[in-house]
C-alpha cells in the first residue's frame, strides 16, 4: 500500500529529532490508533448505485469477492447510519443536488469512494453530453478514486483497502473536514 504509517526516523535524517509535545500526545496518538482502527474496520456503505458500476459493487458484496470479510458488509439504506458512500455510476445534473444532500445528511466521519470512470470524470459521457456532471468531485469531496468502466470487484476491494489505510493515518487533534472550503473551490 502507498501509505506507510510507521514512524521510525530514516537513518540519513540531517536534523535532530525533538519529540513532539510533552508526551501527552502519546496517549492521544494511541487513542487515535484505536479509534482509527475501529473506524477503518467497520465502514458501513450506503445503498447508492446509479448505473453499471452498481452491478460490480453488488458483485463485490456477493459470495465470491465478499467484502464482508473486511467489515463492509452492513450496507445501510439510511444516510444517517452510513459512513461511506460509494458513488457507483454516472452523476447527472438532476442527481447532483440529491447526492449533495445525501452527503450532508451523513454523520461526521464520512468518506467517499468515486467508483468507475463516470464518477471520476464523466467517463464515456464526457463529450457531447448535455446532462452529465463531469466527475463527482464537482459535487462532493472524494477520498479514493477507483478507475475502470466498470472496475472489477478486485479493483473496488483494493480501493476500499486503500481507504482503510488512509483512515488509519488520520489524527484526531488536527482533523480537517474535507467539506470546509470545498464549495469555494479551495
Amino acid at each position, binding site marked *: 500500500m502507498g501509505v506507510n504509517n510507521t514512524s521510525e526516523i530514516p537513518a540519513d535524517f540531517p536534523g535532530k529529532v525533538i519529540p513532539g509535545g510533552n508526551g501527552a500526545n502519546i496517549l492521544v496518538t494511541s487513542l487515535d490508533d484505536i479509534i482509527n482502527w475501529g473506524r477503518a474496520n467497520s465502514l458501513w456503505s450506503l445503498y447508492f448505485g446509479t448505473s453499471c458500476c452498481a452491478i460490480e459493487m453488488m458483485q463485490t458484496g456477493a459470495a465470491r469477492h465478499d467484502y464482508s470479510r473486511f467489515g463492509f458488509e452492513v450496507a445501510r439504506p439510511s444516510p444517517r447510519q452510513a459512513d461511506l458512500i460509494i458513488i457507483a455510476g454516472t452523476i447527472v*445534473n*438532476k442527481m447532483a443536488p440529491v447526492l449533495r444532500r445525501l452527503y450532508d445528511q451523513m454523520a461526521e466521519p464520512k468518506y467517499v469512494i468515486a467508483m468507475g470512470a463516470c464518477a471520476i470524470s464523466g467517463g464515456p459521457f464526457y*463529450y*457531447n*453530453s*448535455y*446532462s452529465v*456532471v*463531469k466527475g463527482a468531485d464537482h459535487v462532493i469531496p472524494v477520498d479514493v478514486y477507483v478507475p475502470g468502466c466498470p472496475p472489477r470487484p478486485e479493483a473496488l476491494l483494493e480501493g476500499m483497502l486503500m481507504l482503510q489505510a488512509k483512515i488509519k493515518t488520520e489524527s484526531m487533534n488536527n482533523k480537517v473536514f474535507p467539506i470546509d472550503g470545498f464549495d469555494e473551490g479551495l
Partner: protein
Amino acid sequence: MTNEALQNLISSWIPDPIAIGLEFTEEKSQFLNITVQPEQLHQLMTQLKNNPDTKFDYLFCLSGVDWGKELGVVYHLESTTHRHQLVVKVKTEDRENPTFDTVCTIWRTAEFHEREVFDFFGIQFTNHPNLKRLFLTEEWDGFPLRKDYVDEINMIIK
C-alpha cells in the same frame, strides 16, 4: 398483409387520398410509410386501430425527429394478430410551438412517449393528461434533441 394490400385498403377508406395530402412511400424504409397532415392524424389512427382487418393495436415506437426545417413525429405501428407493420409520419413547419393531437387515448403507451417527445423537442400534444417534462428538470430551457440546440456550459463538443 403485404404493403401493397395495406396501401390499397387504407386509400380505400378516404375518397381521394392525394387531395388531403396523404402520401404512401416505400423506397427508403422496409415498412410502408404514410405521411399524413396533422388534422387527419387522430382520425386516421383511430381507424387504423379499430378497423378489423388492419387492427394496429400495438404502437411500439413513437419518436420525435427534427427534419432540419420541420419537426415531425414518427409512429411505428404493429398488429399483434396480423403481424404486419406500418409507419405513420406527421410533420409541421412552425418550430415555435408545434402541436399535434395526442394518440394516448388510443394507445396508453403514448402517454409517456409523448411526454418524452415534448421534453426533447418541445412538441405540444393537445388534450394529453399531464404534459410536462419527463427527464429534464422543470426549469431547463431549450429542447436538447433539436438540431439547433446549443449549450456551451455542459456540452463539450468533439
